[in-house]
């Protein structure tokens, strides 16, 4: 009896930025899973025809799945980037969702430049301190240098992506010094994680494909 296992086809659909899709892309690539890396430029035109009217989306054999945290966890499991230990997994999930909250908090106000400035100034002294504080605490408790206390995971990758963008000055009104002064350990963690092969391998692959 010969059985033939056919790999499913995978497609990741998102904007042409790292953002909330990058952990998914990095993990699928690390898992050796080939996927179509779809970058949408005309989201407003196509939004209403999509499954959840939100991105990222992961298509497995043409079937859509939504919710970036769910997708990252799925891909992370495939790549060995998600802990099997239940408490480490709890910490991974906790930090991943906290990074989601950080992004949601920052981008809650958009458009009017004065409103954005006021909002970001307020949260820098308030909610962001609390949220980064949670992540910083988890990192400080870890004896491995990675968030869960075990190996590198999607939590490290997602966090480092967000922190890296902030350190590169991507956010108006929240300068790199915000992190280097208040949470230097997170800045160090991001530099370390963003230099790991699991991250750079994907970036180089993507760069070569887009060239």
């Amino acid at each position, binding site marked *: 009896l010969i059985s033939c296992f056919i790999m499913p086809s995978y497609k990741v659909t998102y904007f042409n930025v790292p953002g909330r899709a990058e952990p998914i892309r990095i993990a699928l690539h690390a898992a050796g899973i080939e996927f179509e890396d779809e970058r949408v430029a005309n989201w407003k035109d196509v939004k209403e025809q999509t499954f959840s009217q939100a991105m990222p989306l992961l298509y497995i054999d043409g079937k859509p799945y*939504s919710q970036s945290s769910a997708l990252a966890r*799925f891909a992370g499991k495939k790549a060995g980037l998600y802990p099997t230990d239940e408490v480490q997994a709890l910490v991974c*999930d*906790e930090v991943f969702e906290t990074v989601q909250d950080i992004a949601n908090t920052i981008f809650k106000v958009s458009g009017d430049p004065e409103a954005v400035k006021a909002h970001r100034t307020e949260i820098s002294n308030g909610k962001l301190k609390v949220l980064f504080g949670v992540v910083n605490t988890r990192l400080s408790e870890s004896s491995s240098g990675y968030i869960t206390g075990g190996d590198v995971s999607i939590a490290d990758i997602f966090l480092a992506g967000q922190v890296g963008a902030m350190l590169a000055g991507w956010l108006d009104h929240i300068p790199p010094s915000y992190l280097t002064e208040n949470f230097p350990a997170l800045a160090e963690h991001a530099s370390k994680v963003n230099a790991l092969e699991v991250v750079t391998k994907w970036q180089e692959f993507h760069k070569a494909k887009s060239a």
Partner: protein
Amino acid sequence: HSIMPTYKLTYFPSTGRAEAARICLNAAGISFEDERVTNWNERKPTTFSGSMPVLFIDDKPHCQSTAIARYAAKKAGLYPSNDEQALIVDESMEVCQDALSSLFSFSGDEDTVIKLRSECLESGKLRVMFDVLNTRITESTSGWLSGGNFSLADIWVMNSIGFMESGALPGVPTTWVRDNYPKLKELADKASAQEAVANWKSFQQSKQ
């Protein structure tokens, strides 16, 4: 041998974002202090994450409702080991959260909020999110959201629907889910009758 950790779950008195974890911890046979906070405004600035629920394991706090629920569900055998099924479970929880937060995203006087919520139910985020859940339950060959066994996803959706049916949300008729998404209402009712859920309810009643 290992000594069982102590567990405490801290949340408001309501079901909300903690009920799924309470149900699952209980189903797992885990004894936990079920702390209900009534003075949150006072306590908030002193807390680890400025949010609830919090699960304390040997006094170490962990935040994020879906993370806590997933941990508890694994302990209870209510989280799938199949990756695709787990993906649907995770997706379902996030979809419910997006659905409910959309109803809380409106500001203004009550009439304005009612109008905006009605639009949201009719054609907005809430409708889109419920369509996602409806697709999942329709596709499932097992009658449970994940396509496999009864899981955390069914519990989470049950609680979300319960909240929407509670009448606590002006602009959200108590019969809206039943009238618009009968399969999901049926799922919620079926989930209610499951041992894990029924056991938690009777345990709570026995404490009163």
